[in-house]
């Protein structure tokens, strides 16, 4: 399993906040992906967007509640199509399955398209130990493989690297003259990797979805490396989490509408590739063998906990990262494991153990922006609170992170949040006070009225030293919801991000 550095969270995030290069990179992502995402929602209208989200959520709820049934159906249909479905309880088992295939099929060269689950398994060192040359082929993944680093974003893994960094890396690792032209660097990667695709015995991919009805693996990509990985080598292995199954092929309509728009603001990606079994006898090309490995690796714990089950609905679009004030300030690496951002703060403690990652659930101002942008309407703030509560109440001292005062705040917050009328009252009073504060000459608010810097109040002053407190939105999600989004585009909702 990938190395766990979650215990360093405080130090790592403090350091990240001081890195001006990282700040520029993070700003680019926010202004790139999230602005485009909002444009796409306006285009289809927020009403339609809301319908899609609800459909997707309903599909996920149904599937996860009957996960055993759909995994069984998937198994039957992958097998019927001539493929092999393997089940792995943990990272070691998944890696051993791949190692077995590599050994018995005499694999020498492997190309990989982006797979967060393979990052989670830390598969590459396993392949290397078997003497396999393994190449990450997504440009961002290729860059971080050369740099021997880990991804810092779900969708843009190398966003923390500047073009100068990449140019230096290419000079050092590929022995080519320094050239920081981004187009030239992409062309270099194309040339180097083109040969590898043609020589590779094994292509490894992740999966965005797997369809139980037909046994189909679906990947959604832009570069074309995913198509090459699933088409050129003689063996294809797909590796993914067990929660990625969906019932019917027709469910893909909804997810294909939501995922690209939420991830990069595209209406659809350049490619959507759907593999059902190995190539058929009279196909011109395609792999001779198709394997799909489904991984648990701690997901059962999320499934078993009704309060955290909905974390399994995540489609890894990254929208909650792009909007998160904490991620925006510290980037992905500070989170210390594979999955960063708000959803990472929920998933990571569940997959690596709460006692190893007890600070992560604190890494949120609970502003609710992640929940508002999530295409599956996953209630991340609620789950973070739940994890905080679990940490605070843990009898095991090593799981306990918050000092008494913070534990109390958390408890009060939980109590208040569970009482909607109180929340409403609080928001209204808060906004009135905030309105006065914004125009006061000594306001701790930022100019755009969206954030508080360093609040001069006793308990929160320490808390806002390292984080900005989001200002209250002019309208809360609940108010917008009740008012009925039907009376026009909720411009306030986009303001409040």
């Amino acid at each position, binding site marked *: 399993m990938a190395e766990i550095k979650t215990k360093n969270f405080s130090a790592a995030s403090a350091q990240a906040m001081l890195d001006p290069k990282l700040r520029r990179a993070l700003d680019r992502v926010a202004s790139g992906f999230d602005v485009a995402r909002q444009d796409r929602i306006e285009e289809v209208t927020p009403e339609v967007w809301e319908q899609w989200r609800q459909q997707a959520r309903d599909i996920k709820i149904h599937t996860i509640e009957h996960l055993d049934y759909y995994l069984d159906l998937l198994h039957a249909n992958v097998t019927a199509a001539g493929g092999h479905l393997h089940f792995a309880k943990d990272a070691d088992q998944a890696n051993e399955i791949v190692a077995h295939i590599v050994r018995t099929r005499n694999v020498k060269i492997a190309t990989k398209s982006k797979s967060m689950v393979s990052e989670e398994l830390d598969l590459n060192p396993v392949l290397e130990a078997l003497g396999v040359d393994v190449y990450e082929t997504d440009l961002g993944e290729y*860059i971080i493989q050369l740099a021997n680093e880990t991804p810092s974003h779900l969708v843009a893994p190398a966003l923390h690297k500047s073009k100068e960094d990449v140019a230096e890396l290419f000079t050092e690792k590929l022995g080519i003259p320094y050239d920081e032209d981004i187009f030239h660097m992409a062309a270099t990667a194309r040339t180097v990797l083109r040969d590898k695709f043609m020589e590779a015995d094994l292509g490894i991919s992740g999966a965005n979805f797997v369809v139980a009805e037909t046994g189909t693996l679906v990947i959604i990509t*832009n570069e074309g490396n995913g198509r090459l990985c699933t*088409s050129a080598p003689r063996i294809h292995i797909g590796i993914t989490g067990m929660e990625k199954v969906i019932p019917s092929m027709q469910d893909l309509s909804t997810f294909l509408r939501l995922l690209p728009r939420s991830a990069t603001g595209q*209406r659809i990606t350049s*490619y959507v590739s759907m593999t059902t079994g190995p190539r058929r006898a009279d196909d*011109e090309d395609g792999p001779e063998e198709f394997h799909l490995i489904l991984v648990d690796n701690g997901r059962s714990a999320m499934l078993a906990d009704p309060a955290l089950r909905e974390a399994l609905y995540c489609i890894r679009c990254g929208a909650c990262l792009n909007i998160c004030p904490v991620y925006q300030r510290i980037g992905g690496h500070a989170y210390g494991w594979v999955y960063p951002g708000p959803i990472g703060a929920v998933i990571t403690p569940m997959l690596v153990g709460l006692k190893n990652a007890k600070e992560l659930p604190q890494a949120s101002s609970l502003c609710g922006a992640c929940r508002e942008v999530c295409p599956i309407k996953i209630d991340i703030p609620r789950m973070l609170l739940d994890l905080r509560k679990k940490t605070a109440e843990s009898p095991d001292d090593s799981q306990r992170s918050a000092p008494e005062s913070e534990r109390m705040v958390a408890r009060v917050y939980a109590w208040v949040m569970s009482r909607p009328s109180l929340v409403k009252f609080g928001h209204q009073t808060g906004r009135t006070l905030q309105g006065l504060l914004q125009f006061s000459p000594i306001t701790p608010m930022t100019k755009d009225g969206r954030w508080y810097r360093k609040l001069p109040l006793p308990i929160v002053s320490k808390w806002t030293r390292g984080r900005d407190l989001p200002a209250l939105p002019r309208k809360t999600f609940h108010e917008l919801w009740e008012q009925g989004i039907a009376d026009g585009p909720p411009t306030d909702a986009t303001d409040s991000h």
Partner: protein
Amino acid sequence: MTNQDTNIPGVSKEEFLQSVRESLGRDNTPPAQPYQRLLETTADLESQAAEIRQRVQENLPALLDKLADMAQKGGWNVFRAAGGEEAIGYIETLARNQEAARAVRSGQEVFDQIPVDDALRGLGLTITPIIQNNATPRRALREVIRRADIGITGADYALAETGSIIVLPRRGLSRLVSLVPPVHVALVRPEEVLETLDDLFLLRRLEYHQRGGEMGSYLNFITGPSRTADIEMTIVEGVHGPKEVHMVLLG
């Protein structure tokens, strides 16, 4: 599974499903409310398919416009050809502008209607058609595709909602013709146009039913050129796939 896999690591399906059931806190119970779509019969799907075809037929001019518009937004160079001659003329001009020496095309029906081979040979290009049932060994075929400057394909479907073409690789239709050469040209006929993603997936499910659970090994949506924004969010086209894609829409 082959006998080399008798001792493959991992756990059995039963063991895995059992642990999922334990996490869900229940026994082996199928969904109390069955999933509607999975109950549909071939006849159900056939009647929906008939509705789709009728809807498409009735709205064809508008759908062609929508397809052209969405394809353009998705990064295709769209050319609407009044007939076969105009389509061939466009491809000739493209080949000349690209100073292309080699082209490869898939063996689809549309090329019986639009004979691009002779036209391109007339310009001095080498064109390799992947004829169905031809005997080109796979290795050799791959080399031909790799060295081609232009890859030409038809489309199995074209989707107005997304501006995509959909290809179903099979005999005569390599997965690589639309992917490996730096320029891809796709010929689209009006009869291939569908309106929505739901239309497409319904027709695929119908075929799956009709063919007794066989859906073919691969399906690809193509929408615009290959692209990346992995370095400083700068969009670069043509990273692993084609840099330039042309949709020649007949109608």
